């Protein structure tokens, strides 16, 4: 059973997915009875081959797949924040306005500025999205999610367009944030090292189900890495 | 018609006293200009009549306004009151005027396209003639054919609505051979399209009326005010006869936007207005028109005596006094 393999305590999970099916065509499902629990404050990395359904899973958790066929049970916290695979900045809002979109309360703008500064986009507040480089767009989109302090953060390859150094900085930033607010995190990444470095638990998605589910703590990164790569390559 | 006065039978005598604040809504732009230029507006005011002028004239527009009850009376020729009756809007003619020499001062002449040889009505045989069934011009064409002894099959009737100068354009581009055009436009037509000509129809087309919603003449207050207005209108026409230049300036130039020169030309072709001593002849002609249209356009027979309110006849002639015209002119 899933619970004992993860060795979780008995607290209510923040995310609870049972028997999740999703398919875009008659011929075959993308998710085929997936089960998943994420504890509050837990950081889970999701890896899997391109086209296995990682984004499909995230969209289901975010409640964005009303029109997709399938069934299953999903429970998520009320406040969810999503970093989309494309950076999805509103092209008609300047960068800062994109970041603070929907933020309420005084100081929203100040918090937005600070988040931008943290992702290295100080001084670009007034730029249009099309004026940013690929990596800059991705960071702006990250800032938009981080400034919100959600209970569940769903991040779909948020560092894909970043160079090694910037990526490390963003890791640190994300870690800091997680320590402060302890959201549950589900992070999709293609970088196994990144998954190991950041997360409490790594999940391998394949053929629409969780193929492997391993806790990081107490295991050697090298061993973990080769295990995960193997799991990835099996098919 | 918001605060209606007491109802008045159509047979009851017209009241003399105008209730204070009675307002009548009149579409009669030429008379409006004359009334203001001649000082007759004082007479209206003294009698306690308030006129809300509307710059509306002609059949379709006035019938639309009548139906919405947004207008009491409008100045038109003879056709609109027939069509109003045929389409279920009850109106009464309260004023009739004529042209003293109608044959030589017609409202319409027959414009002839450049290069087309038409010098008498008999030449119309085989020609393409512009025809607009619902308009005065259309009725005129039917009457011309009747007079020439031709049937609809002897000519080609080209369905063409007369809007703006569409007939002049149609003639000029030789799309039709013959079209009724306003006498005032004949000179413009001839200068614009050299070779174009025009002939007289020899038919009286001088009917000119003021027609009102029946509902308005059934309103005692309005009827009293209209009684005053009809008198003033008669005087206004006589003033126009006496002051052609004043009319040209006040109406054609200032209201209609013609140049002084063009206005003069228009006045020159205009005939003297006449107030008929009796409406009998006018009604006879109206009945003939009604019969012709009923026959040619498949409509119900109409007794035109139901379309007039002859209580206003003496009011009109009294105002004109000795200046009424009689005999053939009427």
């Amino acid at each position, binding site marked *: 059973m*899933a619970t004992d*393999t993860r060795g979780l305590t008995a607290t209510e999970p923040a995310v609870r997915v*049972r*028997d999740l099916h999703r398919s875009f065509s008659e011929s075959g499902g993308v998710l*085929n*009875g*997936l*089960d998943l629990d994420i504890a509050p404050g837990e950081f889970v990395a999701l890896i899997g081959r391109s086209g296995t359904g990682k984004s499909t899973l995230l969209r*289901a*958790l*975010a*409640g*964005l*797949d*009303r*029109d997709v066929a*399938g*069934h*299953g*049970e*999903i*429970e*998520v916290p009320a406040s*969810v924040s999503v970093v989309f695979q494309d950076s999805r900045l509103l092209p008609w809002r300047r960068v800062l306005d994109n970041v603070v979109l929907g933020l309420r309360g005084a100081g929203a703008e100040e918090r937005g500025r600070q988040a931008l500064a943290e992702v290295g986009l100080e001084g670009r507040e007034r730029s249009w999205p099309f004026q940013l480089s690929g990596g800059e767009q991705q960071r702006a989109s990250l800032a938009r999610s981080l400034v919100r302090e959600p209970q569940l953060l769903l991040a779909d390859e948020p560092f894909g367009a970043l160079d090694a150094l910037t990526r490390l900085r963003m890791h640190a930033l994300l870690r800091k944030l997680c320590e402060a607010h302890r959201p549950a995190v589900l992070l999709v990444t293609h970088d196994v090292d990144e998954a190991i470095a950041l997360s409490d638990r790594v999940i391998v998605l394949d*053929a*629409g*189900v*969780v*193929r*492997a*589910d*391993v806790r990081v703590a107490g*295991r050697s990164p090298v061993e973990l890495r080769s*295990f995960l790569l193997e*799991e990835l390559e099996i098919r | 018609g918001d605060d209606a006065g007491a109802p008045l039978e159509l047979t009851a005598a017209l009241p003399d006293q105008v209730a204070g604040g009675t307002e009548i809504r009149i579409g009669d732009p030429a008379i409006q200009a004359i009334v203001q230029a001649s000082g007759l507006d004082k007479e209206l005011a003294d009698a306690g009549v308030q006129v809300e002028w509307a710059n509306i004239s002609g*059949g*379709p527009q006035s019938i639309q306004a009548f*139906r*919405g009850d947004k207008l009491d009376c409008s100045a038109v020729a003879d056709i609109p009151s027939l*069509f*109003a009756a*045929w*389409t*279920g*809007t009850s109106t009464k003619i309260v004023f009739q005027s004529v042209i003293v020499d109608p044959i030589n001062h017609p409202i319409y002449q027959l414009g002839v396209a450049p290069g087309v040889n038409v010098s008498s009505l008999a030449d119309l045989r085989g020609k393409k003639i512009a025809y607009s*069934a*619902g308009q005065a011009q259309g009725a005129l064409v039917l009457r011309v054919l009747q007079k020439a002894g031709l049937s609809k099959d002897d000519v080609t009737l*080209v*369905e*063409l*609505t007369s*809007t*703006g*100068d*569409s007939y002049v*354009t*149609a003639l000029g*581009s030789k*799309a*039709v051979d013959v079209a009724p055009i306003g006498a005032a436009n004949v000179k413009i037509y001839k200068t614009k399209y050299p070779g174009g000509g025009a002939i007289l129809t020899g038919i009286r087309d001088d009917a000119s009326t003021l027609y009102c919603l029946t509902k308005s003449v059934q309103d005692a207050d309005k009827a009293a005010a209209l009684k005053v207005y009809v008198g003033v209108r008669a005087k206004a026409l006589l003033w126009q006869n006496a002051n052609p230049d004043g009319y040209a300036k006040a109406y054609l130039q200032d209201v209609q936007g013609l140049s002084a020169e063009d206005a003069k030309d228009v006045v020159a072709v205009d005939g003297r207005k006449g107030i008929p001593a009796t409406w009998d002849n006018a009604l006879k002609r109206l009945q003939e028109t009604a019969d012709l249209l009923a026959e040619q356009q498949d409509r119900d027979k109409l007794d035109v005596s139901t379309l007039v309110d002859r209580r206003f006849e003496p009011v009109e002639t009294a105002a004109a006094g000795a200046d009424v015209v009689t005999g053939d002119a009427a």
Partner: protein
Amino acid sequence: MTVTEARPRTVTADVRVVRRRLGPGRRIPYAFWIGPLLLLAVWSAGSATGLISPAILTAPWDVVVAFGEQWTDHDLLGNILSSLQRAALGLGFGVAAGGVLAVISGLSRFGESLIDGPIQIKRSVPTLALIPLFIAWFGIGQEMKIVTIALISLVPIYVHTHNGLRGIDGKYAELAETLDIGRGEFVRHVVLPGALPGFLLGMRFAVTSSLLGLVVVEQYNATAGIGHMITLAEQYGQTDVIVVGLVIYGIFGYCADSAVRLVGRRVLAWRRTLED
């Protein structure tokens, strides 16, 4: 390091995350008819209760009677057919010309400077006032009518296609440039499909414009046609016949519009917008 395997389940519960929908949501089938039917209901109720006087707007049942009369006694079908023929011919020429002009002017600044101004000016000038010119050039026959309708329907096609074309995301032009494709292929594969949403919107306006143009052109030397029928009825003040004309216009316009939108949904299947 245990591997969790998928287990077959019998539950088919479907508990999804319910998130407030901000877009318009799914299309409601047949909702399409609610508006027009409501309009008809209001009209009927107004007429039945006398709130709408028959002099102003004929009651629906009287319109049906008038419709029948026009059909049997006045060749309504003939009127409709000859109107439709005119509208279709004019529309055809107008759409072709408008599309071609829009592509030329959309893809070349020079072409634009020549074409765009005159079309905008034509657009600002009342067609009715231009008719004398057309009569002088094309006579008062069918030719003039078709040219006029073509010019009327050219305008929305031109403006919308031009606008749609110019609104294509610049990155697709960049892509095309790096593929070394010719101008013809660029137009076929990038410009036309990219401007298609604009064109279709233009089409919606062109179709109704061409029908409306009938009212204007059929005042001239027409012996049949809906516009002719309305003009005559206006002169006579035959409200019921006018309303018959209007209803026909309404039905045709609505159906044509819905057809264009339906086609639009088909050919724009590649889009994921708030519409879907």
